């Protein structure tokens, strides 16, 4: 096989760059495939694009099953001074979000049981307003309660390519200094 025409390849990278740039949401490989000429090597195009933006003010990131340009992490403190940023989610909302992320699809009653506290309207509103959670059907149990799950915007917000990027539950329980956990909990004395 002959090497691809370097001019063509450059053109493909430019097109991919423009496509990802123009969009405010992550662009999937599928969308790139549709945009680029037949037979284009998406992986090579992305690798080149990534190389070109390395160490720049705006970098390419793999987010929520797609590609997105976002400002470089180290610039955050300097940008904070000039760009108005929204408030962070309060603690109760963050904990509820973590529970939904790990246990989805999960009902409100289950979230409340894990937290050992009622879920307030303010928390539910904050998570819905921030587009972090969405209804995911109903559970086929008496009362058919609504089940909740996280949105693609949740992944994008926290810079996750995938739900599998969340740390494993077992790893979360390790507190510094890490103590190896036995297989079975030891009954209390």
């Amino acid at each position: 096989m002959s090497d691809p025409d370097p001019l063509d390849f450059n053109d493909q990278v430019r097109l991919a760059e423009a496509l990802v740039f123009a969009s405010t949401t992550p662009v999937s490989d599928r969308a790139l495939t549709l945009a680029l000429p037949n037979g284009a090597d998406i992986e090579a195009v992305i690798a080149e694009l990534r190389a070109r933006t390395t160490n720049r003010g705006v970098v390419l990131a793999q987010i929520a099953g797609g590609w997105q340009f976002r400002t470089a992490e180290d610039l955050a403190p300097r940008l904070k001074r000039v760009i108005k940023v929204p408030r962070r989610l309060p603690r109760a909302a963050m904990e509820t979000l973590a529970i939904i992320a790990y246990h989805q699809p999960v009902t409100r009653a289950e979230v409340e049981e894990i937290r050992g506290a009622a879920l307030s309207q303010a928390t539910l509103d904050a998570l819905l307003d921030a587009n972090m959670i969405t209804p995911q059907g109903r559970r086929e149990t008496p009362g058919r309660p609504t089940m909740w799950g996280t949105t693609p915007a949740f992944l994008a917000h926290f810079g996750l390519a995938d739900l599998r990027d969340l740390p494993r539950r077992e790893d979360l329980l390790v507190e510094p200094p890490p103590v190896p956990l036995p297989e079975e909990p030891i009954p209390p004395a």
Partner: protein
Amino acid sequence: MAEPQTLPPASQLPANDSPLAETLLLHLEGFEGPLDLLLDLARAQKVDLVRISITALVDQYLAVIDGARRIRLELAADWLVMAAWLTWLKSRLLLPKGTEAAEEGEAAAEVLAARLRDLQAMRAASLWLGARPQLGIELHPRGTPEEFAAIETSGISADLGGLMRAYMAALRRGTKHSAYRPARISMWGVKDALARLAVLVGSLPDWTDLEQFLPESLAGPMERRAAMASTLLAGLEMARAGTLRLRQDGPFAPILLRRHVFSEDQDV
């Protein structure tokens, strides 16, 4: 002084009202619920959550609740329910090993420890998420999506989450216009019972069970017991005023009542 997030060990808890007890109460309000407090107490043991001493934990929790009740009697029900359950748990854990009740206690303690680990894991997950650079806060996406792309509008963009947000917003706006109505309390009060008794008693010739005077439409056993208590109170009130007489033939026997007829006997 203890640092803001941790509570003093049980041995240091105040024996009476004191500035420390008030701090304690403020602490209590900072917790999301009994489980949240238990987790904090467990972490204060500074051992792996797998190895926490449940009995020590129970003692600490009960001491905190006790301290809080001294300053404010009307503690939320869930704190007290947890206290009652933990008291039960402790009584089981103190039994000699091998008995059925002791095993029951150990199983319950394991369930509690597992719930605390679950909550701990989720709290850690929330911290992990919170520590990540967040879009729109630390990192920024393209500020201006380009309009040329909007040429093709072959469909609408809406998801279920958006539909829910819209519904909640609409309902809120709609109800803003109507006057505030507090949630209706379905309990049968003493006033209700007085009114009902006044109407019914006159029509009853002989001793009648108090239960006959309860309203027909009671939602559940809780409401039934409340109505029972209110009706008894109303009955006592009317007996004092002389319109009624009450009788109970033995402990836990049905309470009977009837109209007081003045021409009759005057026995007590």
